[in-house]
């Protein structure tokens, strides 16, 4: 049983509630204890550090100080933007001249910078053996067996390397490992670490549509049946903003949070994973996968029965011949 401080961040309490719901459901299955940091505040996201470097460090630092005071050595920040800001603050305070001494006064709290920062992909990758075992042991057919999924990392989950460091910034594989642990096939494609337009979703939607369309088209042309993400901004830029693409007659591409994918493989109900909250309907894909999985298992069962019958007939023949 691992126990970590949980920093949901604003999106997981709002527009990406399904990321929070599916994370909690999957963590419970995998024996990971999540304790939400009491009275956490917004990390400032890109608006914070774009405006003022110190503000971009101090806002996340208060959360790390709260986790530290609550006795935790590690924080889980599933949102890629929160993860990046919390981790960047930890690094800045550890490396920038005089910053560690100034922070307690700015945030009005004691702080020893002793808390590690992790994201959900890192957590699930480290649990991938457990996921694999649980999927193999499940009684119901695994709907994800053989489905082609594109792992989309975007920016803030892997860059800069000094801040993230758990995976390669250009050719990351951690999410692909989780896809494989779920029994699905990872797609080899070109846009794994391209930017979706991030925080320009509201203020410069045209840029976000241009970038999102390129990502979805590339995943599709490499055979992906859905894209897997681990960032609320990526999710809304690819899911909500697909409405504009659908209006131009483009085929829908379901966008799954990595936690929702793991939940499906573990046999959790789509409703408990918040899959009904998406704009691109995930129901047709899931229905098709469940049907395929049932057919596959039935065919395997039939093949086994036929093989057993053949073997029995052969044994009978030999007995007669003898």
């Amino acid at each position, binding site marked *: 049983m691992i126990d970590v401080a949980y920093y949901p961040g*604003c*999106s997981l*309490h*709002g*527009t*990406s*509630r399904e990321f929070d719901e599916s994370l909690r459901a999957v963590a419970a299955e995998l024996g990971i204890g999540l304790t939400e940091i009491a*009275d*956490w*505040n*917004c990390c*400032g*996201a*890109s*608006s*914070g*550090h*774009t*405006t*003022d*470097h*110190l*503000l971009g460090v*101090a*806002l996340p630092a*208060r959360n790390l100080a709260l986790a530290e005071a609550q006795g935790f050595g590690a924080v889980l920040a599933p949102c890629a933007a929160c993860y990046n800001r919390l981790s960047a603050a930890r690094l800045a305070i550890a490396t*920038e001249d005089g910053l560690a001494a100034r922070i307690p*006064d*700015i*945030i*009005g*709290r004691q702080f020893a910078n002793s808390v590690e920062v992790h994201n959900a992909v890192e957590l699930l990758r480290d649990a991938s053996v457990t996921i694999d075992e649980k999927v193999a042991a499940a009684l119901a057919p695994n709907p994800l067996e053989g489905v082609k999924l594109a792992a989309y990392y*975007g*920016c*803030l989950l892997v*860059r*800069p*390397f000094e801040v993230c460091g758990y995976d390669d*910034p*250009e050719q990351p594989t951690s999410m692909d490992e989780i896809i494989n642990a779920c029994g699905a096939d990872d797609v080899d494609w070109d846009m794994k*670490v*391209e*930017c979706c*337009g*991030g*925080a*320009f979703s*509201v*203020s*410069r939607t045209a*840029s976000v549509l241009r*970038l999102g369309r390129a990502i979805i088209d590339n995943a599709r042309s490499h055979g992906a049946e859905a894209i897997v993400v681990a960032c609320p901004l990526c999710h809304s830029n690819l899911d*909500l903003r697909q*409405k504009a693409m659908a209006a131009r007659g483009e085929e829908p591409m379901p966008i799954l949070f990595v936690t929702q994918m793991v939940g499906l493989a573990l046999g959790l109900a789509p409703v408990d994973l918040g899959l*009904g*909250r*998406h*704009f691109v309907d995930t129901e047709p894909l899931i229905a098709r996968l469940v049907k395929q999985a049932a057919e596959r298992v039935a065919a395997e069962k039939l093949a086994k029965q036929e093989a057993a019958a053949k073997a029995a007939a052969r044994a009978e023949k030999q007995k007669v011949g003898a």
Partner: protein
Amino acid sequence: MSAPSRTLAADILEATGINAATCYQCGKCSAGCPMASESDLRPHNVMRLVVQDRRDAALAEESIWLCLTCETCSARCPNACDPARVIDAVREMSIAAGVADMPRNIAAFHRAFLEQIRSNGRLHEMGMVMEYKLRSGDLMKDVTNAPGMLSRGKLSFRAERIQGVVEIKRIFEKCGVTP
């Protein structure tokens, strides 16, 4: 912010520890920049302005506000010049000097976002979008998405306000930031 006799590159070095003169203009940063096609100046051009000490041009440049802070430039720089961090520092100086040429919508977004944090400690998405609309004048923005967001439980009318909101106001004051 700094004595006029100081060069921009010296100010950047002091603020970030990055020596912009180590940029040899290979353009790898700009080749990967997702906003390159929409920006007049690309990351390597901004690095050049810094090295050439063209402070007025750099600080008043609109392109620095089109940066998504995706960090692709810094990840790919073969000489560890960290253009993303340099652009962040130029933006900060630009605000301090009062010459920021931020596109209205982007400025409205950042201010609305930070004001939400300062007053509640957390981002209230609906409140932020409302404030953004007022600041940007883009009143009809995403109006057609609101019903779908509400029916999916993605928007809340009520803001979450943390108990330590006084601490957050103090952080803003200590950092000298007024949204």
